[in-house]
C-alpha cells in the first residue's frame, strides 16, 4: 500500500515539476513585461478592439493557425527575415495582447506575423480571401467566399465594391466584404511587428 502511494506520488511529482519549470516559471519571468509607449504616445502592442478583435475570433474559428505561423525566427536561423516576413525576430513582448496565442507550427502558407505591413491593401486581402488564385496562382488555400457579398454581371455595384480582375469570376464582377470579412481583413491588416523593440536586437 505505502509502495503504491510512493509510486503514485513519484509519478505526480514528474508532471508537477515540468509544469512548474516550463510553464509557471516562464510566466513569472514575463510578469514584468509591459507594452512600450511609442513616440506618438500610443502603446505597442496595442489592445485589440472593435473589428480587429472580432476579426481575431474569425481567424481562430476558421483555423488559419493550421497553415500559418505568426512568429519570425531570428536572423541566421532559417530565412524568415530574408523572405521579408519581418524586419526583426519576434519577442515575447509582441504577444502581450494575444489570448489565446496563435503562434502556429506549420507553414503550408507564409508567416503572418507582419502581414499587415507586407500587404496593407484592403482590396488585396479581399481578393485573396475571396479566391486565393486571383492573387496567388497555385496556392492551396481554401476560398473564403462566404465572407463576401457578390455583385453579379448586370447588377449595379455599390461604390465601395471591389472589382474582380480581368473578366470577373463566372458571372461575378465585384465583391463586397460582409461583416465577418471586414473584421478578418481589419485583423490581418493590424498584424505588424515592425516596431523596433530593443530586446529584439540583443
Amino acid at each position, binding site marked *: 500500500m505505502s509502495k503504491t502511494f510512493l509510486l*503514485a506520488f*513519484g*509519478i*505526480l511529482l*514528474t*508532471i*508537477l*515539476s*515540468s*509544469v512548474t*519549470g*516550463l*510553464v*509557471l516559471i*516562464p*510566466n513569472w*519571468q*514575463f510578469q514584468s*513585461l509591459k507594452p512600450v509607449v511609442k513616440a506618438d504616445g500610443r502603446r505597442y502592442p496595442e489592445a485589440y478592439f472593435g473589428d480587429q478583435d472580432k476579426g481575431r475570433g474569425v481567424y*481562430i*474559428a*476558421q*483555423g488559419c*493557425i*493550421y*497553415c500559418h*505561423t505568426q*512568429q519570425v*525566427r531570428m536572423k541566421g*536561423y*532559417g*530565412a524568415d527575415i530574408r*523572405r521579408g516576413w519581418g524586419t526583426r*525576430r*519576434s519577442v*515575447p513582448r*509582441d*504577444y502581450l495582447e*494575444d*489570448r*489565446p*496565442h*496563435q*503562434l502556429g*507550427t*506549420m*507553414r*503550408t502558407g*507564409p508567416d503572418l506575423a507582419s502581414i499587415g505591413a507586407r500587404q496593407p491593401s484592403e482590396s488585396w486581402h479581399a481578393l485573396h480571401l475571396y479566391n*486565393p488564385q486571383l492573387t*496567388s*496562382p*497555385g*496556392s*492551396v*488555400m*481554401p*476560398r*473564403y*467566399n462566404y465572407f463576401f457579398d457578390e455583385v453579379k454581371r448586370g447588377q449595379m455595384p455599390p461604390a465601395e465594391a471591389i472589382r474582380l480582375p480581368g473578366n470577373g469570376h463566372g458571372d461575378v464582377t465585384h465583391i463586397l466584404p460582409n461583416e465577418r470579412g471586414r473584421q478578418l481583413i481589419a485583423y490581418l491588416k493590424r498584424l505588424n511587428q515592425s516596431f523596433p523593440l530593443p530586446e529584439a536586437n540583443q
Partner: protein
Amino acid sequence: MVTESSSAAAASLGALSTPEIEARVQVDRSSKQVIVLYWGAALFWLTFASIAGIITSIKLHNPGFLGGIEWLTFGRMRAVHWDTAIYGFGGVAASGTLLWLQARLCQVRMPYTKLLIAGGLVFNVGILLGVIGIFMGQSTGVETLEFPLWAMPFLVVPYVFIVIANFTMYFQKKTTHTYVSQWYLMAVTVWFPVLVLSAEACTNLGAVDGVAQAIANWWYGHNVVGLFATPTGIAAAYYLIPKVIGKPIHSYHLSLLGFWANAIFYNWAGTHHLTGGPLPAWTITLGVVGSMMMFIPVITIGINHHMTMVGSFHLLKTSPTLRFAVMGSMMYTFASFQGSLESLRSHQEITHFTHYTIGHVHLGMYGFFAPLMFAMIYYAMPRLMNREWSSARLIRIHFWCTLIGTAIYGGAMCYAGIRQGMMMNDPSVPFLNIVQFTVPYLQLRTLGGVILLAGTVAFLINFVRIVTPHKFTWASPTMLDTDRDWKDILKAEKGAEAAQ
C-alpha cells in the same frame, strides 16, 4: 480459453490449473460489456477520424474539394481530424485497454461497471459535442485543446470514473507483485487528469499569459501523446509480447529504468515544438535536453521488447496479436529516435514548420500506438466474446494496409518536409513554387490515408462480426496462415442449418 499460438498455448495452458483459468474467465466476464463498448466506440472514432483526415488531405492538394462550405473548411476539418483521432480513438481505445489490462493483471472483477458504461457513453457524447462545436466555428484556437470549454466536463467527469476504477482494482489486487504494465497504467491515470486540467487552466481559462500560454499549449500537446498514448502503448506491448510467445520479459531492471526515465524526461520535451520561437532560449534548451534524454528510456524499452522477441520471430507468421504488437514496438523505437533527433536546433531549422512533423506524428500514432491497440483488441476480443475472429483474410488485409499505409504516409511527408524546409530556407525560391513542389506528396498522403482507411474497414467488419451473435464459430483461434474467410463461414453455417 485458448492462447493464439499453438506452441505457446500448450506452454501457458499446461502450466495453469483449471481454477486459474476459471478465474480469468470470471475477470473477462465482468469486464466484457465495458470493454466492448469502449473498443467499439474507439473503432467508430478511428473510422470517423480517418474519413475526416482524408477529406482534410484532399483539400490540401485540391482546395476546391467540398469548397466554399464553412463547416467543412480546411481549418475545421484539420482540428476535427486530430481531436477525434487523439480523444475519440486514442482516448477511448486506451481507456478500454487500461481497464481490461488492469483487471487481468490484478486478477479482480471489474468494479463499477454500470458507472464505467455510463461514463463511456458520456465521454463519447462529449467528443461528439466538441466536434460539432469545432464545425460550428467554436474552436478555442488552442491546438489539441480545440474543443469548446462547455464540452470539457463531458470528457473530464467520466475520466474520473476510470481513475477510480483503476485504483480500486489495484488496491484489491490478488497478485503479490506489480507487473511493469501496471506502473504505466497507474502513471496514465495520474498524468492525464493533471495534464488536461492544468493545460485548460493555463490556456483557455487564462491562468497564464502571452507566450507562456504557447509553452503550456505545447507542454500539453506533446505530453498528451507522451504521457497518455505512449505509456498505454508500452503497457500493451509489455503485456502482449511475453504473453503470446510464452516467455518472460527480457530484463526487470531495464523495465524499471525505462519507466522512470520515460516519466522524468518526456515531461520536459514539449518546448521543442516552439524552437526558434519568441521564447527565452533556456525553455527551448530544456525541451531539447528532455528530448535527447529520451534516448535512455527508448533504448531500454526497445531492448526489453525486441530482446524478448529474439528466437520467436517465426510466430509473426501466425499470430495476429504478435504481428501488430511487434510492428508497434518496432515503430516505437524508430519514431522515438526520429523524434529525439528532430528536436535538435539544426534539424528544426529545416523541418520545424513543414510536413515532416506531420509525417512523424503519423509514424508515432499510426505506426506505434494504433497497432498496439489493434493487437490488444485482437488478443482480448475472442476471450471476451468466447468466439473466434471470423476471417483471417480480413486480419491480413488490416495488417498490410496498416503497414503500407503508414509507410507511404510517413515516407511521403518526411521526404517532402525536408525538401520543403530546405527550399523555405532559400529565399530565392518563390513561396508558391514550394507549395507546388509539395502537391504530389500531398496526393501520395491521400493515397496512404485511403489505404489506412481500407484496413480500418476490414477490421471493423471483423469486429462487428465478433460482437454480434452468430450460429457458427471456428473451433480454434484464427491464425494468419489459415485462409479462413467469409465464404467458409457461409458454407459452414449452411452445413449447420442442413444438419438441423
